[in-house]
């Protein structure tokens, strides 16, 4: 009882923090997805449906492309799904709207309470890692929503991926509610409820199938746009300094190829790597990205049909064999954060050798490429 302090997390400096004042009020009834209200002993609570509207789907698509993703939040607090009563199950989730929508759309025709924690608009898994989907916040929301007066049972169903943030035994000690870790995926929640809070093995294992990898591609690509827009023009103009022809003719030759090669390296790391992830060689993501980069480089250089009889041609090839794999490897390495099975210790170990190699290969590659331009 005494090893828990309730009013914490306040000290956190948060970029998307909501004022503590409104945090513990009931969720607003005027949010776009709210269908009405339901009277309870704790006042009128917002009622939601399992049927999503086009705005909800559109919101998910935008968030996947990084539009408004950091501000895609709903009011925390207790919501009614359908017409729950005091025996209905209580499902806990994050206030990232996509998390909330995935949960309710998986429960058509069911009545349940949905307790939304204030995770600052971050999904359950990441918020649990940060501790905002955590023991203290859960206890606080159970208390502020007067859940004890609204339901007669003392059970909370949490997504399994919330477990890194929540100590179930401490929640029980302080709030009296027993935490049941439900399935990983919202789609399995209905089956879990029907089975009397029992999961199958499959519900408990985090896999990373093709479709889940593909939906992550947009956000990977978006992250590369800015560096591309800065670096591509530089490469194009640098291409102009070499060769026999005039500046712009050279740029259209060497510079344009450089831009295409850079783009191909990005697509290799940010698109091909997620798609082919389990089938690529190596355990380290850098090796996977490097493999893609090497293949990409050979294809591009074959298509470019460089004259191997002369030195400028030979070292231009060498330059791209260094640059393209290095960029693909770097971007593939960054996909560790989105993957579902990399450990921090592993990522640190990989980075210790991979990052210096990527940086060295890129710098050497660029210098060699410029040399090839100067002697061309």
């Amino acid at each position, binding site marked *: 009882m005494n090893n828990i302090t309730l009013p914490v997390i306040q000290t956190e400096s*948060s970029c998307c923090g909501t004022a503590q004042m409104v945090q513990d009020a009931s969720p607003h009834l005027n949010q776009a997805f709210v269908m009405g209200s339901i009277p309870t002993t704790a006042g009128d609570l917002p009622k939601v449906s399992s049927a999503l509207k086009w705005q909800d789907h559109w919101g998910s698509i935008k968030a996947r492309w990084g539009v408004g993703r950091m501000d895609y939040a709903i009011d925390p607090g207790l919501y009614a799904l359908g017409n729950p009563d005091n025996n209905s199950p209580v499902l806990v989730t994050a206030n990232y709207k996509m998390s909330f929508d995935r949960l309710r759309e998986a429960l058509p025709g069911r009545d349940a309470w949905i307790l939304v924690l204030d995770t600052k608009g971050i999904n359950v898994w*990441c918020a649990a890692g*940060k501790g905002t989907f955590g023991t203290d916040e859960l206890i606080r929301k159970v208390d502020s929503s007067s859940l004890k007066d609204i339901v007669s049972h003392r059970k909370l169903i949490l997504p399994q991926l919330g477990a890194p943030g929540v100590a179930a035994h401490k929640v029980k000690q302080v709030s009296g509610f027993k935490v049941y870790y439900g399935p990983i995926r919202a789609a399995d929640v209905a089956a879990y409820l029907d089975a009397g809070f029992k999961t199958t093995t499959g519900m408990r294992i985090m896999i990373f199938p093709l479709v889940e990898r593909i939906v992550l591609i947009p956000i990977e690509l978006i992250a590369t746009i800015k560096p591309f827009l800065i670096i591509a023009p530089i490469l194009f103009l640098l291409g102009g300094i070499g060769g026999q022809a005039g500046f712009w003719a050279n740029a259209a030759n060497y510079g344009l190829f450089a831009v295409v090669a850079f783009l191909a390296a990005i697509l290799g790391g940010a698109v091909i790597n997620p798609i082919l992830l389990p089938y690529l060689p190596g355990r380290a993501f850098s090796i996977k990205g490097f493999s893609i980069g090497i293949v990409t480089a050979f294809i591009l250089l074959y298509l470019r049909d460089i004259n191997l009889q002369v030195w400028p041609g030979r070292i231009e090839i060498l330059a791209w064999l260094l640059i393209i794999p290095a960029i693909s490897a770097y971007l593939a390495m960054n996909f560790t*954060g*989105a993957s*579902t099975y990399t*450990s921090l210790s592993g990522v640190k170990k990989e980075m210790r050798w991979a990052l210096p190699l990527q940086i060295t290969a890129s710098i050497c590659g660029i210098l060699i490429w410029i040399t090839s331009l100067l002697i061309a």
Partner: protein
Amino acid sequence: MKNSIYLKNVVTLNFNEDKCTGCGMCLDVCPHEVFKMNGKHMTIQNRDACMECGACSKNCPADALFVQSGVGCAAAVINSMLGRNDGECCCSSEPAGTITDNRGGCCCG
């Protein structure tokens, strides 16, 4: 799809069998089937599958499990190396000295 395995022999997972009460909570919360029940105690059956999320140690009522938890995210490691934490991922930095390691990055939407 089979569960993928990242690098071998790196994880910080530590298990004290003497403290284990065999409650099975770690079985419930582990997303990668790292544990299995062996009679009255747990055992680690697939250590390399551990992603150091910390769910087991957080939920172990007997304090029998320890893991240096963190998110396996290269972008977050780079951000913290560069001393910035307002990168493309998640919000704010953690206050110094919390139990969790740096969680600057992650976030898969």
